[in-house]
């Protein structure tokens, strides 16, 4: 049987076409139930009596039919292995696919899971359940009708099968079919048609065996919306938005919330270099970090400047209405901002009028303890400060109290201060190392699940041996004195070096890089997985590999004394480190020894050692120094960022000791040759593949980026020249203060923050001049030397291998478009890996300070309006020391006394209190302690010890807690102040 489906469609060129498709209806589509004796069943029964849903609402065996809205909203419930015997209609599948591809993917996985008893019924092609669209019926109504029709048919069909004598004799209860829908209209119609129907929420509540499933229900509509004063302006409708965007009245961009101030954010819009500033709760209008929003630009008279206030949201409770006090808080903040705006540089400011696309994901965080016992409504505090708190309902609050949990946002109605969401799953107990690492990985979107079997299937078979064929194809370098130098405990050794004297007096230097591309063949699952991961992520005491461990720690790793495949880059250099010739080839090497930096340093320094390794190390070291000098002279920057290492307890994984990473000569030696190899390879592949070479560039930062650096240096009496890398490098060298040995490092830390991100790109996508690597002062650069932990290097290996004929090319390798996408992903993964690494360090710092209190020397890095940014070199730690300005009287912390007033001087960025003045770079002593008063959100607290400000600083005495600082200030202080006033 056949029918026709008609629809009209607009083509790209603006033409309107009537399209007619033939639609075939069949009579041989099975119902999938084991009860049925009539249908033609072409597969195993999906709907069986073995797995019945136990509901108090329907006490007889039943199958479920889901409406589209149930699938879309309650996917978290469906993913739980609870609901069984579900009939999935193709109408629903199509609608879900159309509305949300991500939910469609998740739903499909459930459907394909055989154990779940989900049966896809092709109702659109069944002759009895096909619903043709009626005139004056919307597409939605038609789908609803199709769903009801199918449900009705199923019920009737099953009842017919069960009305036999045989069945009646068996005494089993008849199986019925129940429709779950959250659409009240549909429900009413279904009831009228005699269909058993209920809402998803009612049904889930009726499941006796799974009371906790209720928490996973999505709350599109919370019941208690009684205090419904709208707190936000309404969003424009989609139509209005599109119109506004088209007429350029509105601007579209991604919203980024500020990390420091919860009432501030910006929207990056193409036209504005810095993005549009958004200030205040109403202007932010329920945008969540990452959302694609539409912004209306304010008239220029109302433009404002980013506030330099660090503002953290205080604890609120689920039942509280926004108190007047807080409203005042916000007003205060805005007032301050306005005042600042009048003087400071103003930037384009706007307000958000609508959301083009939500980018809500799942968020990690913790539950805030509730004031009222046994309440089901709670506030969830996300780990990411850019995300607002989320209101959720749960009955297991007590259990979740000390756990890291995942929550997702459902809606954000106008009358709710916070978005509404629901609980998804728990990650584990708070403070547990494994849980915390999981949080970091999730928050930074690091793929960290186990490698799938398919991926592992592409690994070489063990035991792995080198065949004769391999030897024939590769250059045999097993006799050379090759050795590797790495940090201690390193198991993924991807580079090794050698240096030998040639008969003509020149030196031969070789860099040998693990030949990962030999093992990872393009296009297979292993390759795809590695490309998706992009990089290995290093957390403290944990490594998330890009490639399976067999490769990263064994077959690819150039461990000592074992034959390994390598990709070699060999130069002939003279004694002045001038490169005379170069060559690339694949080789077989046998590293003589895998050393740590320290060991290598010892060998170099120990003059008694005169073996081959020692000699070659010394030669390498000498050449490296020349190379480094040459690089510095051409304007490469020496940047600094505080780096530390944790000594981690092998059992508990808790940090035992913190040490600043030491830089030895050998570090720099290895680094120099890696740079040389990278640059040499970059030049080679860029000439061989002018369109598709994977390169890395570091753009020169715009001069405005340097403003904070230049200003900060000027107050210290130094001139920082930023016109070129060379000048910058020289002027940085000059910034030395005799009385402050750490000054230069701090200036360099500041410089590092002015830099742009280095990024991967494809040579064909940019002009040659833009290839420049600013930090290294190299005209061209790439990554070649760490293929075990970076995918970019694998790409470079493949390109290089193809260019020297050592390996075959494949279509995608030379395709610019796919390479560009790849670079995009790599850049993103690298950034995230970096952030994850930092987050991990921060986490371990917290753990380290648990239960400790230490006074440490530190330096003021920045002076902000209400705080000092303090750097502790010993721990490479940066934190905020909050100062009190006169307005912030009611913080609840006791140390506030109206006498202690810090005045902020905008001219030279100083904070003054009495006769104590804080400049940038001033040394201070602070007391570090972990604030565990809030068990959920531990944070490191900085309190001033030196210089001593009575009433503000903590006492240097042994028990210097806040409590006693409240004591009335001695008169001496007052007199001081009085004097000042006069």
């Amino acid at each position, binding site marked *: 049987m*056949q*029918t*026709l489906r*008609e*629809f*009209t*469609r*607009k083509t790209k060129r*603006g*033409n*309107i076409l*009537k399209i*007619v498709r033939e639609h075939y209806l069949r009579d041989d589509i099975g119902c999938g139930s084991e009860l049925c004796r009539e249908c033609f069943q072409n597969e195993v029964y999906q709907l069986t009596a073995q797995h019945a849903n136990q509901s108090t609402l329907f006490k007889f065996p039943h199958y479920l039919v889901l409406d589209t809205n149930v699938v879309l909203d309650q996917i978290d419930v469906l993913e739980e292995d609870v609901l069984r015997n579900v009939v999935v209609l193709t109408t629903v599948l199509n609608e879900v696919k159309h509305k949300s591809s991500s939910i469609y993917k998740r739903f499909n996985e459930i459907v394909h899971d055989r154990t779940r008893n989900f049966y896809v019924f092709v109702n659109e092609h069944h002759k009895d359940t096909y619903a*043709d*669209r*009626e*005139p*004056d*019926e*919307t*597409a939605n109504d038609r789908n609803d009708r199709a769903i009801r029709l199918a449900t009705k048919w199923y019920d009737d069909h099953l009842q017919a099968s069960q009305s036999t004598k045989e069945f009646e004799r068996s005494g089993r209860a008849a199986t019925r079919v129940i429709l779950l829908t959250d659409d009240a209209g549909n429900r009413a119609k279904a009831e009228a048609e005699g269909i058993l129907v209920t809402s998803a929420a009612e049904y889930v509540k009726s499941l006796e065996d799974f009371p906790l499933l209720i928490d996973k229900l999505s709350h599109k509509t919370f019941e208690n919306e009684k205090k419904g004063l709208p707190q936000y302006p309404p969003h424009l409708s989609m139509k209005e938005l599109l*119109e506004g965007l*088209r*007429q*350029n009245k509105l601007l579209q961009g991604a919203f980024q919330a500020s990390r420091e101030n919860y009432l501030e954010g910006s929207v990056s819009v193409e036209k504005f270099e810095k993005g549009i500033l958004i200030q205040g709760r109403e202007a932010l209008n329920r945008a969540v970090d990452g959302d694609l929003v539409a912004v209306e630009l304010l008239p220029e008279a109302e433009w404002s400047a980013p506030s330099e206030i660090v503002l953290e949201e205080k604890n609120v409770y689920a039942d509280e209405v926004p108190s007047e006090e807080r409203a005042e808080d916000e007003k205060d903040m805005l007032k301050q901002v306005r005042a600042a705006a009048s003087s400071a540089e103003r930037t384009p400011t706007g307000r958000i009028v609508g959301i083009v696309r939500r980018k809500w994901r799942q968020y990690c965080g913790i539950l805030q303890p509730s004031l009222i016992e046994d309440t089901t409504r709670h506030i969830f505090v996300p780990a990411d400060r850019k995300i607002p708190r989320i209101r959720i309902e749960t009955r297991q609050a007590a259990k979740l109290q000390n756990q890291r949990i995942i929550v997702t946002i459902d809606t954000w109605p106008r009358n709710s201060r916070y978005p509404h969401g629901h609980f998804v799953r728990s990650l584990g107990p708070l403070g547990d190392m494994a849980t915390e690492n999981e949080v970091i990985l999730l928050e930074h979107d690091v793929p960290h699940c186990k490698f799938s079997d398919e991926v592992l299937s592409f690994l070489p078979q063990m035991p792995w041996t080198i065949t004769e064929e391999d030897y024939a194809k590769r250059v045999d370098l097993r006799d050379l004195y090759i050795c590797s130098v790495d940090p201690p405990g390193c198991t993924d050794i991807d580079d090794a070096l050698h240096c030998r004297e040639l008969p003509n007096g020149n030196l031969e230097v070789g860099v040998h890089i693990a030949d990962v591309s030999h093992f990872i063949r393009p296009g297979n699952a292993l390759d795809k997985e590695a490309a998706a991961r992009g990089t290995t992520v290093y957390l403290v005491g944990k490594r998330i590999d890009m490639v399976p461990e067999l490769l990263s720690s064994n077959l690819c790793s150039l461990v000592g004394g074992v034959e390994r495949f390598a990709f070699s880059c060999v130069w002939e250099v003279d004694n002045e480190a001038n490169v005379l010739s170069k060559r690339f080839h694949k080789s077989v090497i046998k590293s003589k020894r895998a050393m740590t930096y320290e060991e290598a340093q010892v060998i170099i320094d120990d003059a008694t050692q005169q073996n081959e390794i020692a000699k070659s190390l010394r030669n390498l070291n000498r050449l490296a120094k020349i190379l480094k000098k040459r690089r510095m002279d051409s304007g490469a920057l020496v940047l600094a960022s505080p780096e530390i290492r944790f000594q981690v307890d092998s059992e508990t994984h808790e940090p035992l000791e913190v040490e600043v990473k030491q830089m030895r000569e050998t570090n720099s030696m290895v680094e120099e040759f890696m740079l040389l190899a990278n640059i040499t390879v970059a030049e080679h592949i860029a000439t061989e593949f002018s369109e598709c070479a994977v390169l890395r560039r570091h753009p020169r930062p715009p001069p405005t980026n340097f403003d904070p650096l230049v200003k900060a240096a000027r107050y210290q009496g130094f001139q920082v020249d930023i016109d070129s890398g060379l000048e910058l490098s020289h002027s940085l060298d000059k910034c030395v203060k005799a009385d402050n040995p750490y000054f230069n490092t701090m200036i360099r830390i500041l410089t590092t923050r002015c830099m742009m991100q280095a990024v991967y790109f494809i040579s064909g996508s940019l002009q040659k001049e833009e290839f420049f690597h600013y930090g290294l002062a190299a005209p061209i650069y790439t990554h070649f030397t760490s293929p075990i932990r970076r995918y970019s290097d694998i790409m470079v290996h493949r390109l290089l291998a193809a260019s020297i004929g050592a390996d075959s090319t494949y279509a995608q390798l030379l395709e610019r478009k796919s390479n560009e996408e790849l670079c995009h992903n790599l850049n993103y993964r690298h950034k995230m890996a970096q952030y994850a690494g930092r987050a991990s360090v921060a986490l371990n710092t917290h753990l380290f300070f648990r239960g400790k209190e230490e006074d440490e020397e530190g330096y003021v890095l920045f002076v902000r309006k209400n705080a000092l940014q303090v750097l502790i070199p010993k721990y490479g730690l940066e934190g905020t020391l909050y100062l009190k300005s006169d307005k912030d009287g009611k913080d609840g912390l006791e140390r506030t006394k109206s006498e202690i007033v810090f005045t902020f001087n905008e001219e030279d960025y100083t904070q003054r209190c009495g006769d104590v003045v804080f400049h940038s770079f001033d040394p201070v002593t602070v007391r570090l302690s972990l604030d565990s008063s809030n068990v959920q959100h531990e944070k490191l607290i900085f309190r001033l010890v030196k210089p001593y400000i009575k009433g503000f600083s903590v006492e240097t005495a042994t028990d210097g807690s806040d409590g006693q600082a409240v004591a009335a200030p001695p008169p001496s202080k007052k007199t001081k102040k009085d004097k000042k006033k006069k």
Partner: protein
Amino acid sequence: MAYVALSEAEKTYILHGVEDDFRCDGRSRRDYRPMDLETGLVSNASGSARLRLANTDILVGVKTEIDVPNPLTPDFGKLEFFVDCSANATPEFEGRGGSDLAQELILSLQNAYESPLAFDYRTLCLIPGQQCWKLYIDILILECGGNLHDAVSLAAKAALFNTKLPRVTATLLDAGITDLIISDNPYDCTRIGIETVPLLVTVCKIGDYCLVDPSAEEEVCSTVSVVVSVSMRNGKAFLSGTHLTGGGAMHRDTMRNCLDLGLAIGEHLDRLLTKMLNLEQERVGPKRPQTIGFLK
């Protein structure tokens, strides 16, 4: 034109029949042969009709497209006729054999539809000066049984009546540029007013008499015929074009008689057609007819 071999005796017989107002098939000079009309049978087209007038068989499909109006008539839509003489009708149409006939039919239709009083081109306008509908009226001649002009015009009018244009709303963009949005409901359509759409009536002169709806044989006997296009306005018939076919000439008085006859017949024909079309529409309803009948 399809050629029918006829002997002198046969011609004389026809001639005498006309003189006696009793034609070979029993009709009077003002009578039409029986007609079968069916609309909406080509599902791929926006509107369609199939007309069978005795042995003459015509299928008309209307396709729509968005176009830019002619700058001289910014608020007019466009209409284009195409006639395909299928080789099924007669072997002579094979190859380019039917192109002359097709051209003649197209010209007479264009001529009849040319006046905005005969066809309201404004109904096809979407945005003056920017966008309008262009209707392609594709006419397929499946069988020739004489009186093609009349049959083609009747079928075309029925197909236009059946045509459903998707409802389009326009949104204003910057600088007066508009964007069209189509309704997602396939039943949400606009119709074309066919009140004034002209019909062609061929008045054929055989001997000293004029008659309508000549059969293929009668056409062979005729020396000259005049095709009268009749457009109805406010219940009155107007002439929207004429066109002479055949080799002969015509006296002024005869011509006047022919025109009067054509107008009278046209008015009658139009009334009947409209009535039948409405009747059919009522019977079928707004839904697509069940897939039975011709072409299924």
